């Protein structure tokens, strides 16, 4: 058994051009060194029934040995305001609205200027039973107030506290915003603390955690799960009414001499900054990308998009397990030689090679074809948006429906076992945080275990079967990436006569879908060899590369559901959810669109009458149309399976599209997607419903362009069967050769 996790790492940048430098950030708690080799990935799948792992070594300047160190990960988001003189007032009043999402998960801190290493300062938070607590401590003594009743999970509550340095009087306020139906947990608690407590110096003000050490960028602990809205800090004790009014006001008077800070989380939604409206300008820095653009305590349902009334979105949802950037120091750096081909690359790390538990770990990166410098007529897209969306998925570990959905006992990889025990790496956008809310961001500044050779057989590994097939058949190609398509648009695509989108190009930003639309209208030819493509609407961060965002909304095949009003993307203000619900269903782009999952097994296609159309005789050359197409494959024994798409004219499949083949007998394992169901009846499953199917489609577009779509994730894992000599391979080759031929497609004008 290969140990794939003893050393882990990430490459930065994730995507590089020849001539640029990539650095590798590595960590191992057990190894002090490893052998390293750069490999170009041809097939990443170790399945002995397939082509097997195929990696070539181009030879690099860093091949050799690397010393390793343990670089810990510190998850948990927070907002950190570096210490300033204004924070050092002897007395204080602090207040905000909170919406706890895991109040019983353990002691948590909401607002603090506290040093856990000294046990001094002040902090407002929750105890392990979910009671609000206010703690003050200094060299002269300490005191703690605890509210009478615990806060409720997922209920807004106004919380506040004050300390009068002159008298030592302390107050703790807890007021439920909705007091109906047993939801009132309000209380007012007063007490006595030592007067004139001295606060620790060089201590950051922290929201959603407390500092564990001194300094402007301290380690934090006591992380809070939940929303915080409109925190305010004053330099004197205030009555409950005054403090609450200050929190309710969107902009407390900056001229108020008692005001220390008033933070407005509705500003600069895509950034990692929080802005203070007071004259002190106590702006802060967010750590680990807590969820922004979420409904605040004042959200009333009048709008559902944060851009319409940002003032209703002045909250941030912090999570104790948020993780966006491991912050590891680099261990190796490589300038990519100018003559390296674009492609999927990885740093291969090996150790203990002669033992019975040899280490074999990989750190993936992608070498792009430089913008404007196409080396081939064909481009293969590395679907980095999809890879990030699925990064470190724990779906099969955490979600109780996983085994029923996948229709069989779950086989975990060693990577999965590692993820189960090491949640600090951060999960995927399919997963939920420990408080049950969905992960909406994914970044590449962390090890991504399922985006590398030997990883789980989905997305990255499946896509390498296409690379292997292209290499075997001798097609020349460039690799381009989703993130570059988003940044550079159609100009990146138009350098190519033909572009292949692989097994599962599921996540698309508006720039990406516009780029493909323009490319196809401009005469580009698009081969879509997958299923469930062009499905979710996402955003890439406007300035930070390789950060993507999804809001799942309330439609689509979703493992979590976005909260009401929170389905607008913080990165760009656009709505998220399905492209289908935004008038851009996949059928409009590629003729087919997602309609079902099938995990019991995969199926062959049957050829349809359109396949006999003489206008596509080139497509079926050498094919017996009386025989099933793809009654073989590495994923379920067929070419139509896992996730499948169909032609649907009402969703925009073009009128002159040819529906060449179909797999519409998916049996009981074929389960329609949720948006396919309007009303409910017992006949919707694949054994009774021919709308549960995979279709193969061809249609010409404007200016000599064309689209070919297979509508199945399993397709690409049938390409290599029987030594690459099979009907799936032949059809794909026929299409690719014809698409690389600039001759227009005749006879479709009528």
């Amino acid at each position, binding site marked *: 058994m290969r140990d794939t996790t003893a050393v882990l790492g990430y490459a930065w940048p994730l995507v590089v051009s020849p001539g640029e430098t990539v650095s590798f950030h590595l960590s191992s708690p057990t190894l002090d060194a490893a052998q390293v080799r750069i490999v170009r990935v041809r097939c990443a799948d170790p399945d002995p029934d397939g082509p097997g792992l195929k990696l070539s070594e181009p030879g690099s300047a860093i091949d050799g040995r690397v010393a390793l160190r343990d670089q810990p990960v510190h998850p948990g988001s927070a907002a950190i305001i570096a210490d300033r003189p204004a924070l050092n007032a002897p007395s204080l009043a602090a207040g905000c609205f909170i919406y706890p999402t895991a109040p019983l998960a353990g002691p948590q801190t909401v607002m603090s200027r506290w040093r856990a290493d000294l046990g001094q300062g002040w902090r407002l938070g929750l105890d392990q039973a979910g009671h609000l607590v206010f703690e003050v401590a200094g060299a002269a003594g300490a005191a703690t107030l605890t509210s009478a009743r615990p806060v409720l999970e997922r209920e807004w509550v106004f919380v506040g506290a004050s300390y009068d340095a002159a008298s030592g009087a302390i107050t703790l306020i807890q007021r439920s915003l909705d007091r109906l139906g047993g939801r009132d947990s309000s209380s007012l608690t007063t007490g006595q603390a030592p007067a004139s407590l001295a606060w620790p110096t060089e201590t950051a003000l922290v929201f959603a955690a407390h500092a564990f050490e001194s300094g402007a960028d301290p380690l934090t602990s006591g992380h809070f799960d939940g929303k915080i809205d409109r925190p305010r800090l004053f330099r004197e004790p205030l009555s409950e009414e005054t403090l609450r009014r200050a929190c309710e006001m969107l902009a407390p008077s900056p001229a108020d001499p008692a005001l220390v800070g008033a933070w407005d989380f509705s500003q600069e939604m895509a950034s990692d900054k929080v802005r203070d409206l007071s004259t002190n300008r106590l702006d802060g820095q967010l750590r680990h990308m807590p969820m922004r653009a979420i409904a605040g305590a004042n959200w009333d349902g009048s709008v559902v998009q944060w851009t319409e009334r940002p003032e209703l979105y002045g909250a941030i949802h912090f999570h104790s397990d948020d993780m966006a950037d491991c912050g590891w120091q680099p261990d190796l750096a490589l300038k990519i030689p100018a003559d390296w081909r674009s492609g999927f690359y990885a740093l291969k790390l090996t150790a203990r090679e002669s033992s019975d538990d040899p280490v074999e770990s990989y750190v993936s990166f992608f070498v792009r074809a430089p913008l404007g410098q196409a080396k081939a007529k064909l481009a293969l897209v590395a679907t980095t948006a999809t890879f990030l969306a699925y990064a470190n998925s724990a779906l*099969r*570990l955490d979600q109780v429906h996983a085994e029923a959905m996948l*229709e*069989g006992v779950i*086989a*975990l990889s060693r990577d999965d076992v590692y993820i189960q*025990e090491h949640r600090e790496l951060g999960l995927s956008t399919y997963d939920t945080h420990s408080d*049950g*809310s969905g992960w909406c961001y994914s970044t590449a500044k962390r090890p991504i275990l399922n985006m590398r050779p030997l990883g789980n057989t989905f997305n990255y590994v499946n896509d390498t079967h296409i690379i292997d097939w292209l290499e075997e058949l001798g097609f020349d190609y460039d690799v381009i990436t989703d993130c570059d398509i988003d940044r550079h648009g159609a100009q990146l695509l138009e350098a190519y006569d033909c572009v292949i989108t692989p097994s599962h190009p599921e996540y698309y930003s508006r720039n990406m879908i516009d780029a493909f639309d323009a490319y196809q209208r401009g005469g580009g030819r698009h081969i879509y060899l997958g299923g469930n493509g062009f499905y979710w609407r996402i955003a890439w961060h406007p300035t930070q590369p390789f950060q993507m965002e999804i809001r799942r909304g309330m439609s689509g095949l979703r493992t979590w559901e976005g909260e009401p009003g929170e389905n607008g993307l913080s990165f760009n203000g656009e709505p998220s959810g399905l492209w289908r619900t935004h008038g851009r269903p996949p059928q409009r782009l590629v003729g087919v669109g997602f309609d079902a999952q099938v995990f019991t097994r995969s199926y062959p296609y049957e050829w349809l009458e359109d396949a006999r159309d003489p206008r596509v005789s080139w497509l079926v050359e050498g094919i017996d149309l009386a025989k099933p197409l793809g009654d073989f494959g590495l994923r379920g024994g067929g070419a139509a399976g896992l996730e499948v798409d169909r032609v649907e004219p009402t969703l925009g499949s073009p009128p002159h599209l040819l529906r060449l083949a179909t797999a519409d007998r998916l049996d009981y394992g074929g389960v329609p997607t949720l948006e396919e169901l309007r009303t409910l009846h017992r006949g919707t499953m694949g054994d009774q419903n021919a709308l549960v199917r995979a279709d193969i489609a061809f249609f010409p577009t404007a200016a000599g362009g064309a689209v070919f779509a297979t509508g199945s994730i399993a397709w690409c894992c049938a390409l290599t069967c029987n030594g690459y000599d099979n009907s799936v391979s032949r059809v794909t080759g026929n299409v690719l050769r014809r698409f690389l031929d600039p001759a227009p497609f005749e006879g479709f004008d009528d």
Partner: protein
Amino acid sequence: MLVNYPEAAHWQVDPSRQDLVDEMRARPRGPHSHDLQRLLHRMRWTGVGKRHVLITLDPGRRWMLARLPGQRGAPVETFPNRVFTSLIEAEWTVFAMRWEALTGQKLD
């Protein structure tokens, strides 16, 4: 919030349905009859907390029985003496353990 409650699976298991056991033994990976599908969904859905899974030892060749702890961050429980060389064999074994847990009847 969208929540899957494992206890919502309430298809009634009939311990006298030896025919379903026989069918599963004959075709552990399907296709399955309607009633066997329902039995399997009951077993697979309610397995939370102590869900049996496999750990791939040698891709496509060898798998070890294991059990998920039902808690994030906790280690996966492994059974190094229960190694399978076919997924069909593993599927049947997990079925037999669940049948016994649900009905009290031990299968051969």
